């Protein structure tokens, strides 16, 4: 399998805290890679830096074999790299259908086309249907339940058919049934060829879904292996349980 995303020596400090410290890892095309680690190990910072929400102090990034200088969220999304956020972020004042339609990569000259054109609407409805949200197409996203918002966020990210999706705690804050639903959706999308990089604390979820598992500690990877091996790695146990 080829390397879809390669991170090399990523470093990011906040004041005196080194959130990322020469962090390097790779995400293979077609994998569901997990990024785990104790609180404060730099997982979300890694996401923010990779997707261009925060500038890195040092390090480089390559996506689909091409170096990405000065990553920018909008440009990366158009290259095929998208992300979700920890707290299901949707556009509360817009309908679910509009939320999904925003995920399409529109060229600038399409800005004066109709807000919700027929083909857009049909695609949005089909996608919302896949996520069990068809009945809520015209509901304001702010009125959906938290679980539904998580599904909507995922659906809108997938609208542009990205190559790689970074999921920031997809199983956090939702009930076990919804966790299973989200997991099924990830599997379904994975079967269609989407690669995932997942930050998650819910270990059972990670162990079921992901391979390989990268363990971060103090801003750098200390292990990268199959889930079963990572579970028994003394360095990993030490990072989670040690002093």
């Amino acid at each position, binding site marked *: 399998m080829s390397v879809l995303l390669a991170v090399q020596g990523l470093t990011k400090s906040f004041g005196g805290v080194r959130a990322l410290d020469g962090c390097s890892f790779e995400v293979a095309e077609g994998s569901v890679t997990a990024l785990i680690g104790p609180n404060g190990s730099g997982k979300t910072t890694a996401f923010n830096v990779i997707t261009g929400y925060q500038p890195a102090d040092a390090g480089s990034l390559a996506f689909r074999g091409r170096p990405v200088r000065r990553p*920018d969220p909008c440009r990366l999304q158009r290259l095929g790299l*998208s992300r979700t956020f920890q707290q299901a*972020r949707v556009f509360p*004042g817009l309908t679910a259908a509009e939320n999904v339609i925003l995920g399409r990569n529109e060229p600038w000259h399409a*800005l004066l086309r109709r807000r919700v054109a027929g083909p857009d609407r049909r695609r949005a409805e089909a996608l919302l249907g896949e996520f069990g949200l068809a009945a809520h197409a015209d509901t304001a996203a702010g*009125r959906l339940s938290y679980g539904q918002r998580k599904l909507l966020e995922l659906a809108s990210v997938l609208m542009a058919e990205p190559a790689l999706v970074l999921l*920031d705690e997809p199983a956090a804050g939702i009930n076990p049934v919804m966790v299973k639903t989200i997991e099924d959706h990830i599997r379904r999308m994975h079967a269609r060829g989407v690669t995932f990089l997942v930050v998650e604390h819910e270990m059972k979820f990670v162990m079921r879904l992901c391979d390989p598992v990268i363990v971060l500690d103090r801003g750098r990877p200390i292990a990268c292996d199959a889930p079963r091996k990572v579970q028994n790695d003394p360095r990993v146990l030490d990072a989670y349980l040690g002093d």
Partner: protein
Amino acid sequence: MLPLIASQHWQVNLLVFTVMYAGLAAAWNLLGGYAGYPALGHTAFFGVGAYAMAIGTIHLGVGAGYRPFLLIAPIAVGTAVVVLPIARLLLRTRAAAFAVLTITLLFMVQTLAYNIRSLTGGSSGLIVPIAPFPVATFERPFYYAMAALLALTLAVCWVVRTSKLGLALNAVRDDEDRARGLGVQTELVKLVAFAVSAGLFAAFGAVWAYYVGFLYPGFAIDPLLALGAVLMAFLGGRRALWGPVVGAALIGPAQQYFAYRFGASQLYLLAYAALFLLVIYLLPEGIVPTLARRLGRLRPGSGPGKAVRDQVATGSIFSAGDLG
């Protein structure tokens, strides 16, 4: 139609100003409402338009009568273009920082108007040649010009609302960072909204200058003008096409009356502040969306009402969400 509504000079004068404010509020709404960027210094662009009109008629020899009206379009387009680099800079900030910077811009423009005496006459002001219209119907051409500009502004608003541009602006309003991550061209749409909004303010300023005939910096670049427009948009409802117009229809005449009765004491400013607080507290969505929902024109369970109330309750009505 106009003579049926009003024939007295003071009545038509009131209409001219109310229609102007309706247009200003709607133009402000493009950026302040649809995109949620709390611009408080749009008076600067109004002033630029006003001075451009005055200087155009005095120095460029455009001619008298209806001919100065020909200047409106180039003034609007010119302002929209010139404002682009400034807008680009300002739009790097958000929420309160953006509001403060726009106010700063306003006072910078005002200071320039005081100091570039060769063009603006400084604090002694400029006198625009009086339009040679018949005294009995002097205000009418200005009323029609303002009404045409209001119609144009509403048409622009309608196009924006029903296009992908409006959808992208609304996404910026709701969560700009996530919009960027979804591939929405946030920079571009914000710039367009800013420039169009500023250009329209300049157009209204140009007509206003020709109408009042006299300008000096504190008058042509009065912070309260844009603040009034903001208040009207809030009262009428920023999410409705007609919201700003309804707000202007209510506040415009009241404002003229207050200024006329209490103008010297500036007590009317207190009334402004009180009204603003009441609107935020009692009608956070504004009159038009609230009425529309009461009348059941929006499907129950759909409108954005709850989301807006939540934003108001948490004080985040203008602020963008932080990074997760």
